[in-house]
């Protein structure tokens, strides 16, 4: 690519926005590398057959009392099962398709509309422009807590061309990416040796392309547990939401691509303080956790500043107005102090941006709703609004009659990503559960607190490559009916409760308590109160949680109840890890421990689950030579 071409070039070749965002990237945040495997083959590859369907009848003695008896369940069999058809799942599925494997994709939402990938949004993609070694790439930012072995292996899993997301996503039917409207020239935001980044990647094209492969997609299916036989993962189980049918998908290896568990992060009328999707409730992470696997990185989230009002579109990336480090000069506290002004911008990255705002709020200068203001009263400030938010200015006028130009907008820190995932080995296989691979494995994101589209893509493909290698060496054992019936009994048993709170009420309590412990402004007594509340919910509310609806057809009370177990486990692990880490690092500011403390905390934190008891431990960062 032509290194002299610069997107939105300013005086020094890069616009101020590009500079700041680039600073953010190189100093420690946004994205890890890209990699799609062998996409060229997907338009002409042989179509792959899918699993077979059998019908079983659960035996009455293990079923959940009367409600379970006689209900048929479906059994599918395949080589590779991919849970979650989002950004990581697309690449995972394409990798298996290219290799001619039998694949089943289990997706909670409607195919094409699930998770973050299901938002048809103006996606920013980035990758390393030049062919650089893994540790010189700017497309993912190694941080002090990253598992270096995984970082190297996943980056090197693909060649330079495969890592080029512009090419690979275009081959998955993405369109023109951003162009100069006058000349039609391609217009990247960054065009540097270490980093190429550009807007206008619309992920739904890739989902269409995935659908066109003919791979079997079981959508509207909530995977609620993995099948574990003899200590090995041999597939996944769950509910087909529109019919309430129990499904068992048997697979030689399973790849978890279920996104970030941000739906636990607070609540504001229709959503948490997160732009992430309600589909992503950490279900399989929690399942692995309950099967004895450790989680890692749970104390870290990735934050962005976005509007709190109007409430119905609070923390909605695709209709909201946000402010990133490119707008920092226009951010002020409740008293009107523009606290970024005069800051050395070379130290400004996404993490220091979040920390500065969290510190301001922590010191009592936040707004009524716990945010800060972005002051759009000057034309320069208004012009600093980021690319993705620009189209929302008209929407605000059209729907709410609000003119963003000239107002002081109250904004809060939303969490778009979360770092908590099962600990994995170098092949992205979950430690302690052979056969289960994880596209966002714990320890990989380090203090960055989660993934980005290029990491999701690359890791999805890499995990699947390794899952295929693993599958080649194993054969499926006969299905253990007891294992199926245990999960069947657990989820259908939810119909047999009475007298307790509805799942929605419990969900809100989990979300508020999680937010108290995990928001960026972390204060020990509030965190402890959040943890105590989560423990109370576990002890008092969950055992009697009662559905308000006894239908098997699209029962959202039931769905919410099943997910609550998972959200609660992940929330409690995250809250406890957040409290455990007694320093300031990543997207958070801990007022009692305001400094980064490398002497004591240059380590990962992992959590274990023991019969409802969650404990934290330090774990050494995996370096290349460890």
């Amino acid at each position, binding site marked *: 690519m032509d290194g002299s071409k610069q997107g939105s070039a300013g005086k020094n070749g890069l616009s101020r926005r590009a500079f700041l965002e680039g600073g953010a990237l190189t100093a420690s945040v946004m994205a890890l590398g890209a990699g799609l495997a062998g996409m060229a083959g997907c338009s002409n590859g042989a179509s792959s057959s899918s699993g077979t369907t059998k019908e079983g009848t659960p035996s009455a003695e293990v079923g959940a009392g009367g409600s379970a008896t006689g209900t048929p369940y479906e059994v599918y069999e395949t080589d590779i099962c991919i849970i979650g058809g989002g950004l990581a799942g697309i690449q995972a599925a394409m990798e298996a398709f290219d290799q001619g494997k039998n694949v089943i994709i289990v997706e909670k939402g409607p195919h094409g509309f699930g998770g973050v990938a299901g938002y048809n949004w103006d996606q920013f993609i980035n990758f390393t422009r030049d062919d650089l070694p893994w540790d010189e790439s700017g497309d993912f930012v190694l941080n002090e807590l990253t598992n270096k072995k995984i970082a190297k292996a996943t980056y090197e899993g693909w060649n330079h061309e495969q890592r080029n997301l512009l090419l690979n996503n*275009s081959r998955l039917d993405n*369109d023109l990416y951003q162009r100069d409207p006058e000349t039609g020239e391609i217009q990247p935001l960054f065009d540097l040796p270490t980093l190429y980044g550009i807007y206008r990647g619309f992920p739904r094209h890739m989902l269409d392309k995935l659908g066109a492969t003919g791979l079997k997609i079981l959508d509207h299916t909530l995977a609620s547990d993995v099948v574990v036989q003899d200590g090995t993962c041999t597939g996944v189980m769950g509910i087909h939401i529109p019919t309430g049918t129990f499904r068992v998908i048997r697979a030689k290896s399973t790849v978890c691509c279920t996104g970030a568990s941000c739906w636990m992060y607070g609540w504001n009328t229709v959503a948490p303080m997160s732009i992430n999707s309600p589909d992503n409730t950490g279900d399989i992470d929690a399942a692995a956790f309950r099967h004895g696997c450790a989680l890692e990185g749970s104390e870290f989230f990735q934050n962005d500043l976005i509007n709190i009002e109007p409430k119905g579109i609070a923390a909605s990336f695709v209709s909201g107005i946000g402010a990133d480090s490119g707008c920092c000069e226009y951010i002020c506290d409740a008293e009107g102090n523009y606290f970024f002004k005069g800051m050395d911008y070379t130290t400004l990255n996404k993490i220091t941006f979040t920390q500065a705002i969290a510190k301001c709020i922590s010191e009592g200068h936040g707004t009524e709703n716990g945010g800060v203001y972005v002051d759009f009263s000057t034309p320069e400030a208004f012009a600093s609004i980021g690319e993705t938010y620009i189209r929302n200015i*008209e929407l605000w006028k059209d729907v709410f009659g609000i003119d963003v130009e000239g107002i002081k907008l109250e904004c809060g820190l939303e969490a778009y990503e979360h770092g908590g995932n099962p600990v994995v080995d170098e092949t992205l296989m979950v430690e302690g559960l052979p056969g289960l691979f994880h596209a966002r494995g714990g320890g990989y994101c380090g203090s960055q607190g989660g993934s980005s589209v290029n990491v999701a893509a690359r890791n999805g493909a890499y995990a699947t490559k390794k899952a295929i290698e693993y599958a080649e060496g194993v054969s499926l054992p006969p299905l253990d009916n007891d294992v199926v019936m245990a999960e069947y009994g657990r989820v259908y048993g939810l119909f047999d409760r009475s007298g307790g709170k509805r799942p929605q009420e419990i969900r809100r309590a989990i979300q508020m308590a999680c937010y108290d412990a995990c928001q960026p402004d972390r204060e020990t007594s509030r965190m402890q109160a959040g943890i105590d509340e989560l423990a109370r919910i576990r002890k008092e509310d969950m055992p009697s949680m009662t559905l308000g609806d006894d239908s098997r057809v699209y029962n959202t009370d039931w769905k919410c109840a099943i997910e609550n177990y998972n959200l609660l486990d992940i929330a409690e692990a995250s809250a406890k890890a957040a409290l455990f880490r007694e320093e300031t690092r990543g997207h958070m500011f801990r007022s009692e421990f305001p400094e980064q403390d490398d002497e004591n905390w240059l380590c990962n934190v992992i959590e274990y689950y023991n019969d409802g008891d969650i404990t934290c431990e330090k774990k050494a960062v995996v370096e290349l030579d460890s």
Partner: protein
Amino acid sequence: MKVSVQKYDPSKDDAPYMREFEVEYHDNMTVLEALVQINDNQEPLVFDYSCRGRTCGRCAMALNGQACLACVTLVSENGKNEVTPLPGFPIVRDLIVDKTKMTDRIASIMVRQRAYPLELEEVLAPVDAETYKKIDPLEHCARCGVCTASCPVVAEIGMKNYIGPAGMIAIGLRYYDPYDQGDRIVEAVQNGMYNCTQCGTCDMVCKALEIDHQSLYKDLRAAAQERGLAPKEA
């Protein structure tokens, strides 16, 4: 504030019925906020949403008979608020409909037709600026179905005879797409383009505000005319 909502569970109910709820109003309250409030505090209501910002299309339904996206449509504090499922699609439960008869068709149209995979040089090469300006807005179609559910032609002759505005967006996007090698004009005519009366309803209801359906229809018709594909009477 009063909100009435249509409910229906095909495994239990003979027919859909309306339920009325009292909802606590606040400024700028959306239909989605009202529904969540009812479901959280009063009784189970089945509906779907994800993005809260007109990009996933999952919250499409109707307010007072008009198809809309619940996440970006306001309720009226003192007026009528009657919430029903998206018209024209089979009801799965309460406010959830099965849109696959539309979305599956759009997805298969949207798959790019090409003889050989794209190469990097093609991707990096400049494109016609006018083409770019036409494609860019169409990218934002959420396939929510609000336009198709509002289309008087679809209502009268069915999606079989006219695919509806969202389908036309998909055809148009690939028609403009310089990398696509399919015959999208034939596809537009096949999918009932000439049955569209260009009444403009789709432009009125679409929340992807940058999309200008009418100019797309003009371009497609002009191209069909040039190819001699216009019907005799048109």
